[in-house]
């Protein structure tokens, strides 16, 4: 598809026999999860969302490779279609959602009463789906002061409900901005009358973000989704009048995708790296055939400017922490030429963390790129103008995100950003620097090649490690690491910001946030540790590390710090646990390598380990501990 007017244009259209395919898949004894996921990755219509959700509900527990999540829906309108749409769309984002729906209209009762069915469901998150009518923002408030009173009241309601979700239910509060209305009262003057529904909704949205949503909550920017879809298409007064459905059925797939992106990001599923094809993606033409003078890039013609916009977007993404890579079928010397010598190129070699140009198939190259960057292939987004290459990657590496981008480079940036692969939950200094971290890593790899042995190399890095207990400054990055780290993560336990905050002052736990700097730069926070204190032993609840610093002996330094603290409190031994997941085989021998003794292997493959502190001797390390 080549324009933005279709629904979810970055996805492949569903097959014509979608319904039959689902039926066949759902009937089989051995459920083919990846086949079902491939169907969910198409642009499902409202009817198909219903069919998919029915199948998932029937076979749910037998689906593999998904992250389960219980989501409660609390709202002031009909949520049946939202429920189906979310279950089906969740599959597209790697989530197995079980939904609990509050009875129609029971908003406050559901989240303020700890005995409510919603509280009993022990949901991970509660989505508050409110509308302007319920919040008192749909009716014009033209008396002096009335508008402010109305918005105050709406904000007070949401504040109370969010507090109920956090405190009574103990779940993540998921809030939504309100879409602007499609119609106006004063026309263009609406925006200048505080009491017009449009102005009140705008004020509500602003204050929601500033005053209500806090770290640990999630926000779905429905106003943005509705605006990009088009307000006239988003709202459907007939659906509202006949069944109190808050948005048009056509908009439902996009709404559900926006919700699931954010939920997915909360479960560590946001993508980390944009992999760019070169010919006819980053520039117009084929460098190998057309040469430096012949490719189209830069000002002066529409095609050249369109490709320049692709480059500008890539750079903007890099600035917010998305790592850039190149994967091109080219001679490397040809592929590098524009980066080095074309004066109009915005992208330069130094912006690209992994540059792969050869004639090997792209699936193998994408695996190689992921390895070089120490990330999973499921963290990659692959932008390529060639439909055949896209099809191969979808077939070989279904976990890679591959947007359909049409055949007009002017639309590539819009397609990529609308797909929402890089959803963020927070943005801080660490994010802005992340792309640089990966660059530094590439330099470290070069340094490793020149050192003759590993110890010499590690010593040459002049590493300085800083370990501190959890605190408010580190909170959002700690939560980010806890929810994103998959490979070097011994237990894969996820905690939201609220839970992390609670640990800051909890005397029964020992926590560490660990940062590492070296002569190539600051790696930022790279490890998070939580030990639960018993009388004679401390047990590792969470031990995770960023794979950026793998093989640097950081885990040994961390153990030395924990052991020292434990000894000071008279503890006899440390207990470690490894819980296998689909992604953490990397650390199955973590405790063995650190000198722990295996005590027990559970049925699920989980292992328990013990380290007698009296027998522990801290090793000499090439890391200064600060």
């Amino acid at each position, binding site marked *: 598809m080549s324009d933005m007017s279709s629904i979810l244009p970055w996805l492949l259209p569903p097959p014509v026999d979608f*319904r039959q395919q689902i039926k066949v898949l759902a009937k089989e004894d051995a459920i083919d999860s990846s086949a079902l996921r491939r169907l969910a990755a198409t642009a499902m219509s*409202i*009817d198909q969302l*219903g*069919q998919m959700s*029915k199948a998932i509900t029937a076979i749910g527990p037998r689906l593999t490779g998904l992250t389960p999540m219980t989501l409660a829906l609390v709202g002031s309108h*009909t949520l*049946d*279609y939202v429920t189906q749409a979310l279950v089906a769309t969740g599959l597209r984002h790697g989530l197995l959602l079980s939904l609990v729906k509050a009875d129609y209209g029971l908003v406050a009762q559901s989240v303020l009463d700890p005995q409510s069915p919603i509280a009993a469901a022990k949901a991970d998150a509660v989505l508050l789906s409110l509308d302007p009518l319920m919040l008192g923002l749909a009716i014009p408030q033209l008396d002096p002061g009335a508008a402010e009173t109305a918005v105050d009241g709406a904000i007070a309601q949401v504040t109370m409900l969010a507090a109920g979700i956090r405190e009574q239910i103990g779940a993540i509060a998921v809030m939504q901005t309100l879409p602007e209305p499609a119609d106006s009262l004063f026309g263009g003057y609406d925006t200048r009358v505080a009491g017009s529904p449009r102005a009140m909704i705008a004020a509500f949205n602003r204050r929601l973000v500033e005053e209500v949503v806090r770290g640990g909550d999630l926000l779905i920017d429905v106003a943005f989704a509705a605006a990009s879809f088009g307000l006239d298409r988003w709202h459907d007064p*007939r*659906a509202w*009048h*006949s*069944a109190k*459905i808050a948005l*048009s*059925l*056509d908009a439902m797939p996009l709404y559900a995708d926006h919700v699931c992106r954010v939920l997915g990001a909360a479960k560590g599923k946001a993508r980390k790296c944009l992999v760019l094809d070169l010919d006819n993606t980053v520039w117009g033409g084929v460098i190998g055939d057309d040469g430096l003078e012949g490719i189209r890039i830069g000002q002066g013609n529409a095609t050249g400017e369109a490709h320049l916009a692709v480059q500008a977007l890539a750079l903007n993404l890099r600035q917010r922490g998305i790592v850039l890579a190149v994967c091109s079928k080219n001679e490397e010397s040809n592929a590098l030429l524009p980066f080095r010598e074309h004066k109009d190129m915005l992208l330069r070699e130094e912006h690209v963390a992994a540059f792969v140009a050869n004639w090997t198939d792209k699936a193998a190259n994408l695996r190689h790129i992921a390895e070089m960057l120490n990330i999973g292939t499921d963290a990659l987004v692959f932008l390529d103008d060639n439909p055949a290459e896209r099809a191969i990657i979808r077939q070989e590496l279904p976990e890679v995100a591959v947007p359909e981008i049409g055949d007009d480079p002017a639309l590539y940036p819009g397609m990529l950003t609308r797909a929402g692969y890089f959803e963020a939950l927070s943005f801080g200094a660490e994010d802005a620097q992340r792309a640089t971290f990966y660059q530094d890593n590439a330099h470290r790899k070069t340094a490793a090649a020149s050192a003759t042995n590993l110890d010499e190399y590690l010593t040459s890095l002049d590493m300085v490690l800083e370990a501190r207990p959890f605190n408010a400054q580190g909170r959002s990055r700690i939560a980010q690491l806890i929810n994103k780290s998959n490979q070097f993560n011994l237990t894969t336990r996820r905690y939201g910001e609220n839970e992390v905050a609670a640990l800051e002052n909890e005397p029964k736990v020992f926590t560490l946030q660990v940062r590492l700097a070296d002569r190539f730069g600051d790696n930022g926070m790279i490890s998070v540790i939580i030990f639960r204190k018993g009388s004679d032993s401390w047990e590792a609840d969470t031990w995770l590390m960023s794979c950026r610093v793998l093989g640097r002996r950081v885990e040994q330094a961390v153990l030395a710090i924990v052991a020292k603290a434990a000894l000071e409190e008279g503890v006899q031994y440390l207990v470690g646990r490894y819980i296998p997941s689909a992604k953490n085989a990397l650390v199955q021998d973590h405790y063995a390598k650190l000198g722990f003794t295996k005590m027990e292997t559970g049925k699920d493959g989980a292992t328990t380990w013990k380290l007698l502190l009296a027998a522990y001797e801290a090793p000499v390390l090439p890391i200064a501990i600060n």
Partner: protein
Amino acid sequence: MTREEVIGKLVPVMEDVFDIDDLDYAETLTAGDIPEWDSLSHVRLMVAVERAFAIRFTSSEIEDFKVLGDLVTAIAVKAAG
């Protein structure tokens, strides 16, 4: 469009909306005859019919459909005009 043409196109739409196979068309069929046909899926059916036939119904027309034959009549008129 003739009634036959409308019915031929409408039946697969209804099967997709209600996720049922082998719907037997009858002029007198009502929502009560199909368990999947409730007030909510009715909204979805109307949207799907409008899309399939490139027509629009008014709210009152939607409320006035008593039997399936009424819907076919309305489609035949609108799709012709």
